[in-house]
């Protein structure tokens, strides 16, 4: 008996050693179809993975900087690359939770633009990265979808229609946090998409948005997880809902769901990839980020999800290769960052939201509590 235990122990120790012989590399993202697109788009195609010297283990998380902060502050950093939202990329860099990157030697665009120049500003006025710690990933939007069967005659076309419960009766699906809803309310209130941030950030902006939201009072079903709104619309629980465009694209392209979009006033936001400060595989992680952000990798990812590559050269590759989606359907009609779409989009302002996040979240919660 004791001998068996000894053998087992020795075997375990041996196993531990062989396991450390491979560099264990941890990539953290949001899970689901999105992580799958990253896996196929640039993890599986990364040199060290292909030749077997590195094993990338993929973990899921729910966003936010909580885990990163805990790891950095305790000095035990187990994540090497993490997919984060702009707000967190900015805050994390400010608080020293993420590694700063030097983009000077990263891949140029085919037209000769430097790495940072190949990330178009999309109306922000500042191209390139939003934070010295963040490498570009994708653009995604909050967009309205509806079930065409719910409106046999007149179809909703504008953001105004989402807020008009008389003309288009039925419940609306809205998420449980204030981001994007306030911007959409301003568009419905007659503000041009290009002016929304200015109005929202000006005197009384949020209050104007909340006043418009009164139109929806009593007609909202709130969702908190990305898969829920699709379920809400297809089950008829609501007639229209705000969704993540990638989720809607996947349902339409892969599962043949019959949703239609309202392409006006959609709120564009980015996802970035970064390295937690003190990552044990920092050099490798930088190489990984370089590979993940090549024009080819960015385009490859779009074969599996309808989020738009941040680097314009990625979009160019898709344009030339259409129909690009992995099952042979054109993907550009579902992309949030084509020129036509961007004209009617609002680019969410992560700096302003980082400032007002807590305040507006509390105000939004109070609004939800009164919305019954």
């Amino acid at each position, binding site marked *: 008996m004791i001998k068996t235990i000894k053998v087992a122990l020795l075997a375990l120790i041996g196993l531990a050693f062989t396991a450390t012989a491979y560099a264990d590399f941890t990539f953290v993202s949001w899970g689901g179809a999105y992580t799958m697109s990253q896996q196929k788009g640039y993890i599986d195609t990364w040199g060290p993975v292909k030749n077997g010297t590195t094993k990338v283990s993929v973990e899921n998380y729910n966003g936010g900087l909580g885990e990163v902060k805990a790891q950095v502050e305790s000095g035990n950093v187990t994540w090497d690359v993490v997919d984060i939202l702009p707000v967190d990329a900015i805050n994390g860099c400010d608080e020293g939770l993420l590694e700063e990157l030097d983009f000077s030697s990263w891949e140029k665009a085919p037209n000769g633009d430097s790495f940072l120049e190949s990330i178009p500003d999309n109306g922000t006025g500042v191209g390139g990265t939003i934070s010295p710690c963040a490498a570009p990933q994708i653009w995604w939007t909050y967009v309205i979808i509806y079930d065409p069967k719910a409106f046999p005659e007149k179809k909703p076309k504008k953001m105004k229609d989402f807020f008009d419960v008389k003309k288009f009766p039925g419940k609306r699906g809205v998420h449980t946090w204030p981001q994007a809803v306030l911007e959409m309310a301003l568009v419905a209130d007659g503000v041009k998409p290009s002016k929304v941030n200015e109005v929202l950030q000006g005197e009384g902006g949020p209050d104007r948005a909340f006043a418009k939201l009164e139109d929806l009072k009593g007609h909202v*079903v709130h969702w908190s997880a990305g898969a829920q709104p699709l379920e809400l619309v297809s089950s008829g629980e609501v007639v229209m809902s705000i969704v993540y465009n990638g989720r809607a694209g996947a349902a339409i392209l892969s599962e043949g769901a019959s949703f239609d979009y309202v392409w006006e006033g959609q709120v564009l936001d980015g996802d970035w990839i970064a390295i937690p400060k003190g990552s044990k595989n920092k050099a490798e992680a930088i190489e990984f980020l370089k590979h993940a952000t090549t024009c080819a990798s960015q385009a490859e990812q779009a074969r599996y999800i309808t989020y738009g590559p941040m680097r314009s050269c990625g979009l160019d590759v898709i344009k030339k290769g259409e129909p690009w989606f992995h099952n042979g359907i054109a993907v550009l009609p579902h992309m949030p960052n084509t020129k036509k779409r961007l004209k009617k989009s609002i680019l969410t302002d992560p700096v302003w939201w980082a400032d007002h996040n807590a305040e507006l979240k509390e105000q939004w*919660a109070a609004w939800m509590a009164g919305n019954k």
Partner: protein
Amino acid sequence: MNQTAKGEILTTDGIPLKVSLRRSERINKFRAFALVLPLTLFIIITFVIPIIAMLTRSIDDKQINTVFPKTFEIYKQWDRKKLPTEEMYATIFGEIVNAEKRAIGKASTRMNYSRSGWKSLIKKSKRKFKKIKEGPYKEQMIAVDKRWGKIEFWKALGEMVDPYTFGYFLNAVDLKYDSNKEIIRQPEKRRIYNYTWYKTVKISVLVTLFCLILGYPIAYLLATLPLKYSNLLMIFVLLPFWTSLLVRTVSWIIILMKKGVFNSILVWAGVIADENRMQLIYNETGTLIAMTQILLPFMVLPLYSVMKTIPPSYMRAALNLGAQPMHAFYRVYMPQTVPGISAGGLLVFVLAIGYFITPELVGGADGQLIGHWIAYHLKSTLNWGLCAALGTILLVVMLTLYWVYNKIVGIENIKLG
């Protein structure tokens, strides 16, 4: 027997007996201590230290005082009516320019809790102040960003002058400090925590009650049925217990939604009309139903194990002596199940009060309980001070409950079996 001049008793090797005894006892004590040492260490590391850390975080406000020490010295003299003098501008200018980037990032996050906008203001200033070579600084700083000329921003710093603060606790109950550290209420549109506390406690109490009402008869059946039936019944109780929480939560969505199973059966049976389907999910009703079902085993199991120990002869005796069945049950059986009721009730209540995934998925607008806010501040605003304050209040609520319970029922009456 050996004895010294003083009359102490000695052992054969000449050591006083007392000393010798103490020595051998010390070894025994040490052994006993060594035996529980791993457990003690485990409890200290995983339980005591985190709780102390949480308690200190809830009142610790040093992350800003260490970055702007001189500014706050001058701040204490400021009248808070007119814009500060050039001296204060010059001081904060110097401290921003010279501060380490990471420290100032943390400080700006902290300043932003008391007034939205500080975060980006400090960050922008840190970047642009490099161009300002010499004073006077006031006008140049306002030229960089006009927020430097707004007195509200300066006033907001007032609550941070001390290294320790009750501000986080105040925030956790919809209060705050004004610039003179007087306690005032939050502006009306931001008052959300008191409502959330009320909602959390209400839902936890209701869920505990429902669990008791539903769980008591089940446990009674389990304890009294012959073994072959009760085992089968036990599997029904445990099966959902072993199923993933998310699966059960999502199942409830499918059952309770408007075009879901339950509503459709009612429509089919003609109980309600097709256009009057009930809203049973994405509101408080859904939260109560789902949480009750998920927490039910935590009520049934302690009840069952207590009921199992009650000899059936007691009830028979009561009935024999002429008690009505209801009366016998109420006077003889139920008092003996109190330890189980208490254990189950406390267990369910404690779990319910910290719940957040299930309510968030099925609760719609009502789904954000206090656990949601702790998670939100932990992850999104990084306001760990407020998290700690909310957590501490939660802990105090639980300890108070425990204390009250101990006074009324007595803690020795709690039994898990």
